[in-house]
């Protein structure tokens, strides 16, 4: 323990609380305070400076603001806001200040302090995104592939399966060849939902490599504002060790609401929809930190899956359009598909991955192109499917039937991600007509049997032979 600093006198800059409203404190004094600086008050309660003007300084209290009263003294620390990150945080549930809240005791202090705000690595420090991050969801891995280091937006109305998709992606990392540290950030969620999620991850043995950062709806807005940055700081700790990290921000719409509330109390001029003028910068500086570093810096990566909730499928609203323009693609969840029983309710037509097939393994690239084409052709012809089959030519009928089988095959149960070679084999089977003679109602049954058959095979690389063998020997059409 270093104690040399105790030999020197200290020079502090202090301020006094003028007012406190909803966790936002206005102070007199603090002439030396800098933007984003950490200041400390009574009972070691920390605050973050967010406003500096001629009337004084204002900041957000990161703690119990009911313990702060008018006249209380705060002092500058000369430090930016930082959180403590260490290997021991994996498997734990923490708050927006990276303090454990899962009742399993304190975290050891043998890690490092990571700044919550950081300038993203420049272009020289990066390398192209070309390693796949398998989600285990066939619709995504085949048609909207995600690479390590990419930012892929998950967007859709409430209750369309966005969080379920994110959780399945976490679960699928269990069998990943190169391990991925997963971080789930819950912003403005219900506490019960976070508890259920943690319980499910523990049940499926996914908490062993997952960190949950929680800033629920009942937490102060200051913590809801800080949580995504804390999660990114923790992610950067692992990325700088050369590891791959997946961060799920659930969701950034509530993050924007929290920042709007803070800005309005700070009396910043409101803009469109009462959001402050720097609402774009709030998310752009967060998501720019998701990168793939070059080999000199360890080759680690952060893949971001920000979730945005739309109202009545309006993707042209303010926050959704902001984040669509920041991210490297979006996965669009549609309510109609969800209600019709197509789950995951992914609209492949309106979804895109700007990284594309660069982030796919070769076998998947080979089979996925045809799948996408077949599905697109089916969508165009779907309207004609309502006519009697007697009015359509044989080729059109075949395309419609193939498309129906593809759509049925893309359905997946929750908590049931598929390994990539199983997906390749299934897509190969449907592309080459092995499921054409199977009735629609039997597709799921045949799929389950085939998946079980594949699990028993040692060499899955030879998927073409495996498919032919299976369907010729076992499936009666």
């Amino acid at each position: 323990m270093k104690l040399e600093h105790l030999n020197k006198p200290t020079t502090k800059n202090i301020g006094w609380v003028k007012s406190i409203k909803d966790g936002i404190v206005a102070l007199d004094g603090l002439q030396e305070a800098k933007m984003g600086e950490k200041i400390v008050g009574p009972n070691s309660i920390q605050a973050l400076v967010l406003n500096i003007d001629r009337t004084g300084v204002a900041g957000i209290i990161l703690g119990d603001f009911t313990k702060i009263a008018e006249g209380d003294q705060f002092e500058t620390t000369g430090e930016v806001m930082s959180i403590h990150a260490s290997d021991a945080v994996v498997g734990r549930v923490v708050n927006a200040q990276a303090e454990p809240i899962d009742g399993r005791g304190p975290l050891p202090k043998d890690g490092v302090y990571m700044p919550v705000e950081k300038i993203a690595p420049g272009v020289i420090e990066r390398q192209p995104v070309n390693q796949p991050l398998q989600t285990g969801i066939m619709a995504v891995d085949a048609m909207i592939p995600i690479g390590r280091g990419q930012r892929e937006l998950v967007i859709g109305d409430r209750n369309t399966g966005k969080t379920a998709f994110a959780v399945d992606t976490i679960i699928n990392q269990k069998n990943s060849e190169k391990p991925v540290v997963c971080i789930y950030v819950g912003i403005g969620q219900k506490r019960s939902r976070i508890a259920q999620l943690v319980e499910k991850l523990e049940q499926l043995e996914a908490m062993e490599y997952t960190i949950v950062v929680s800033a629920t709806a009942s937490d102060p807005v200051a913590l809801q504002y800080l949580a995504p940055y804390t999660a990114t700081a923790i992610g950067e700790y692992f990325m700088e060790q050369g590891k791959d990290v997946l961060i799920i921000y659930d969701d950034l719409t509530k993050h924007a609401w929290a920042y709007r509330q803070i800005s309005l109390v700070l009396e910043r001029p409101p803009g469109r929809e009462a959001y402050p003028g720097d609402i774009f910068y709030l998310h752009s500086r967060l998501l720019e930190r998701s990168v793939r570093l070059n080999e000199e810096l360890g080759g680690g990566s952060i893949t971001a899956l920000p979730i945005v909730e739309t109202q009545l499928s309006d993707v042209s609203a303010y926050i959704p359009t902001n984040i669509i323009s920041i991210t490297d693609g979006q996965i669009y969840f549609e309510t109609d598909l969800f209600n019709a029983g197509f789950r995951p309710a992914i609209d492949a037509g309106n979804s895109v991955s700007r990284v594309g097939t660069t982030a796919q393994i070769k076998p998947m690239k080979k089979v996925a192109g045809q799948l996408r084409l077949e599905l697109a052709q089916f969508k165009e012809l779907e309207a004609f499917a309502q006519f009697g089959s007697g009015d359509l030519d044989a080729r059109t009928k075949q395309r419609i039937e193939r498309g129906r089988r593809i759509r049925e095959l893309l359905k997946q149960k929750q908590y049931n991600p598929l390994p990539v070679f199983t997906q390749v084999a299934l897509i190969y089977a449907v592309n080459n007509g092995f499921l054409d003679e199977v009735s629609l109602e039997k597709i799921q049954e045949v799929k389950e049997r085939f998946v079980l058959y594949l699990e028993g095979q040692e060499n899955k690389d030879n998927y073409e032979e495996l498919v032919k063998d299976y369907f010729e020997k076992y499936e009666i059409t």
Partner: protein
Amino acid sequence: MNNIQLEKLLATLKVEESKAIVEYAGVLTEVQQKALEQKVISRYPEATEVTFRENPDLIAGLRVLYQDYVYDDSAQGRVEQLKNTLETI
């Protein structure tokens, strides 16, 4: 409050703002006080007056207060620092 009263109040506040306060524990001789006064004014040139005030809570040493700056060279300040250092372990 009329304009003249307001101006008087503002003038009083400005005078208060430009005062530096030196708190000390123990004994401070006149020579030491004079030397300290010069040191404080050289450090904070806008300070027009330096007042001295005994504060036994400091245990030993001194503390200089000027506007929102605090220069702390007291035993109590060192104990506070030690407490903060131990809390981070």
